[in-house]
């Protein structure tokens, strides 16, 4: 652990202790709400040697103990330059991202200028609010330049998909207080404490805004206390409510009064894959009884049983009670975050890998790549299937990633190969390719001059001369102004 991470761990611990201090006044709150301006730039996933256009945006943040600022990850994703401004004062302070967790859409900013902390009263985290209780949001949304304050009630608390990562679900608080673009990262206050971080809305409905509850913020702060972001662990189990069915209960001899959910799908590479079986019934988690439709009672709330895992850190023990072959069994799983050959999350702060061979530019088949080529609709059926199945299919358990031909840089060595653009590499000279790194090795070390590349779902192979490809590579890179032939 470095000096910095130890200091941060101490700050995070201190922060957690201070959460119970007296509540802040309205003036204190306003002073602690920060306007965040960010210039961002990401990489192209189709031409990964290039960066995309520079974009500017604004959001909100709030100061916590230690003068650090919490905001949404989506406010500062792919940041090149960030500056923050207090409610009172015109000075703009350059800021840096210290930790960012895209999976829960939270980021922690640090300001080097010591004057930023002067007279700053950090905000404290509260607990989960009650349904129908009044909350106040603070932020800098569109429609004006000054701090905006809106009020509403807590409408609902449940797990919901976070739009920023795209594939992760965490606990979310719904409110009818107006949450608009620019509010993101701003505090939602009840009794002078932060009970949530405003982060997304529902455009198809009226007065539906969402905030990240303080339990998720606490999880983030605890996660980074060791100086690194592990993200959320996941049980990685798909389940069904079969136990509601009397005939099914009879078939599996589930005793009356016992309830639970039936495991229907497991994911290779995740701890549950080796310890659970399809059709196991998970009856309890962390000592909490699971209902037949997959809910538990936690902190007075009816929430999905996955919430128990949500509150754990990676590496912690998940105690499960299961019903298997007519017997009760205890199973302990180690909480782990997702590991998958195709990234399902939206990519941020990612430097995409690529490799160019004879003008054939390969990159990693990912959600970022799919979005860049026009989204899901642009994929042929067989690649849609691959995208869906790769993370759940034992066949691909040993794959690190899939290489896709992102671009053909036209040259005499690759004439008429453009039709393979967008296809995922399956084999090179008959050897299965399980990563872009392996692809490079297979192409460069092929014993044949005419190398055969086969693509998933394609009947025709791509044949290229290794000698010609390697001899033309330098000229092609020069011609197309590409500084390097690879980034792996």
């Amino acid at each position, binding site marked *: 652990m470095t000096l910095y991470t130890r200091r941060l761990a101490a700050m995070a611990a201190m922060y957690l202790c201070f959460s119970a201090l007296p509540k802040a006044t309205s003036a204190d709150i306003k002073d602690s709400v920060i306007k965040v301006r960010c210039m961002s730039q990401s990489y192209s996933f189709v031409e990964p040697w290039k960066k995309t256009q520079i974009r500017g945006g604004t959001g909100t943040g709030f100061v916590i103990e230690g003068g650090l600022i919490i905001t949404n990850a989506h406010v500062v994703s792919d940041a090149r330059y960030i500056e923050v401004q207090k409610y009172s004062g015109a000075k703009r302070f350059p800021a840096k991202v210290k930790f960012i967790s895209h999976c829960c859409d939270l980021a922690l900013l640090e300001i080097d200028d010591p004057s930023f902390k002067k007279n700053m009263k950090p905000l404290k985290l509260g607990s989960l609010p009650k349904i129908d209780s009044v909350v106040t949001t603070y932020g800098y949304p569109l429609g004006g330049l000054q701090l905006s304050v809106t009020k509403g009630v807590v409408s609902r608390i449940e797990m919901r998909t976070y739009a920023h990562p795209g594939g992760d679900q965490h606990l979310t608080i719904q409110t009818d207080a107006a949450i608009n673009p620019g509010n993101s990262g701003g505090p939602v206050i009840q009794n002078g404490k932060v009970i949530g971080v405003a982060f997304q809305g529902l455009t198809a409905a009226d007065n539906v805004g969402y905030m990240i509850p303080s339990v998720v913020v606490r999880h983030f702060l605890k996660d980074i206390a060791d100086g690194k972001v592990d993200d959320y662990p996941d049980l990685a189990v798909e389940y069904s409510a079969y136990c509601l069915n*009397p005939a*099914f209960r009879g078939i599996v001899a589930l005793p009356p009064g016992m309830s639970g959910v039936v495991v229907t799908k497991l994911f290779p590479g995740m701890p549950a894959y080796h310890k659970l079986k399809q059709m196991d019934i998970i009856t309890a988690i962390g000592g909490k009884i699971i209902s037949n439709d997959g809910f538990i009672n936690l902190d007075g709330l009816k929430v999905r049983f996955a919430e128990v895992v949500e509150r754990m850190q990676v590496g912690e023990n998940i105690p499960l009670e299961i019903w298997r072959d007519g017997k009760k069994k205890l199973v302990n799983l180690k909480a782990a975050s997702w590991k998958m050959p195709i990234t399902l999350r939206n990519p941020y702060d990612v430097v995409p890998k690529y490799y160019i061979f004879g003008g054939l530019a390969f990159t990693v088949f990912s959600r970022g790549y799919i979005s860049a080529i026009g989204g899901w609709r642009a994929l042929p*059926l067989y690649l849609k299937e691959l995208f*869906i*199945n790769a993370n759940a299919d034992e066949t691909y358990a040993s794959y690190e990633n899939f290489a896709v031909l992102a671009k053909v840089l036209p040259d005499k060595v690759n*004439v*008429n190969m453009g039709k393979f653009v967008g296809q995922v590499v399956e084999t090179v000279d008959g050897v299965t390719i399980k990563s872009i790194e392996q692809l490079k090795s297979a192409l460069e070390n092929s014993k044949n001059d005419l190398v055969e590349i086969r693509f998933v779902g394609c*009947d025709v192979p791509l*044949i290229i*001369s290794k000698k010609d490809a390697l001899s033309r590579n330098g000229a092609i890179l020069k011609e197309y102004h590409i500084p390097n032939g690879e980034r792996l």
Partner: protein
Amino acid sequence: MNETLREKILPVLAIGLSAVLASCSTFHVESERLKAEIDNSVVRITATVQMPSYHAPWIWHQPVSRSGQGVVVGKNLVLTLASNVMNAKVIRMTIGTEPTPTPLTIKAINYDSNLALLTGNLPPEAKPLDIPPVSVFKHAAPLRMYWKTGNGTIVEGSAVLDKADTRYNFNSFQTQIMFHAIRSSHPQTGYGVPVFDNDGHFFGLATQGGNEYDFIIIICDTIARSFDLKKGAEVCATGMPGFNVSPLTQTYLRRKLGLANTDGGCLVTKVLQQGAGSKQLKKGDVLLALDGHPLDAWGRYKHPLFGPTFQSHLFSEHFVTEPMKATIVRDKKKIDIDLKLSDIDDSKWIIPVNPSYKPVDYLVRGGFVFLPLTLTYVKEWGGDYMNKAPISLLSALSKARGKLKTPEKREVVVLSRVLSHPTNIGLQEFGDNIVEEVDGKPLKSLAELKEILNDTSRKVVKLTLLPGRIPLWLSPATLKSADKEVKLRYGINQLERLTPRRK
């Protein structure tokens, strides 16, 4: 200057203008003459179609009407597009302003060319058109289209010929020469609008358009090959290739296959189980020549009239049972083979290609609704079904397409939905799952599933469902106990409809 304008330029302009007016007037007179000539040959067709519901296969959707055009081609014979009348419950035609339309029936339908011959007691004024054996392509040649509106008025449109090209028609496995034209007046095309050349000769029927201005003409050559009008309008079965090819334009791939750039030839990438190539061709063969025509690297031959033309068109020019020679390269050796031309029988596929609106087979047991997977089923998700239908159904469809029914696999069975009932609580979330296995054995057909689920001596039946190979345990006795109530509650008159298997 003014004098020059008055004395020299104005008379020239006046002469020019009168010439234009005269030509317009000639065009108008010509147009009116032609209209009068064909007025009793162009007919309006109205077909009423009722599609079965796939989500509730025991009911039918509301009947819908569609209209199109046709031409009288013989005594009591009308030619139109197959797509105008396919699966119609009722077909009617009007020739003029008569208040009562004439009922028609389908005499012959050729899905491969998207053409249908209809018959009925046509009014005495119906005048058969002379169908020439060929349509001659002339670039930018003017065309006229005529169609009848709902009140019997004949309307005229104009277009110019753009290009001749091969393309797949409808759901055919065969490509045909079609002429592309660009509209210069009215947007109405498609639906079988008759097309004439500038001299008033019948030229073909307009079918689906490309873009707003483009449309395609099924030409007389195709019409002549589709039906034998002399032999009682029989459908003429032209040969089907039954294989797919891919261009061989990669330099190094050609080198690896031992082919020079001048050799031409295309790569056989898929061989179907029916069609001319099904027995003699193999995936990986290089097709060098067909019917004596050398093929280029894109798989085209030099057509005497239309230039480079896709090889599969050669099959549409020959009838079933006719022989055809092919030269191929297999394992780097050049060999000549004889292809015996054959048809493709859609009913032999596990997944038929042509959409059928016949009553849907189904089986309801204990609220679980099972159906055979068809193209029409996934088309329930609308025109964008390839993006909207569940991937598992599309995937199963894609894997089974082009495969013949066998005694082991006759249908792909789908658990379409679950009608809620106390006996299936907790299992209602299933829907659009493929039933892959029953008790560990691959499922053959809906009929086999019926037999298994009716066997109440079995305590439990395990279905393995895709995606995910999820097991679903069902008790035949429990299913049976719910059937009566499910039938009453959901207004299902029959709990099953299974078409008897053809011997």
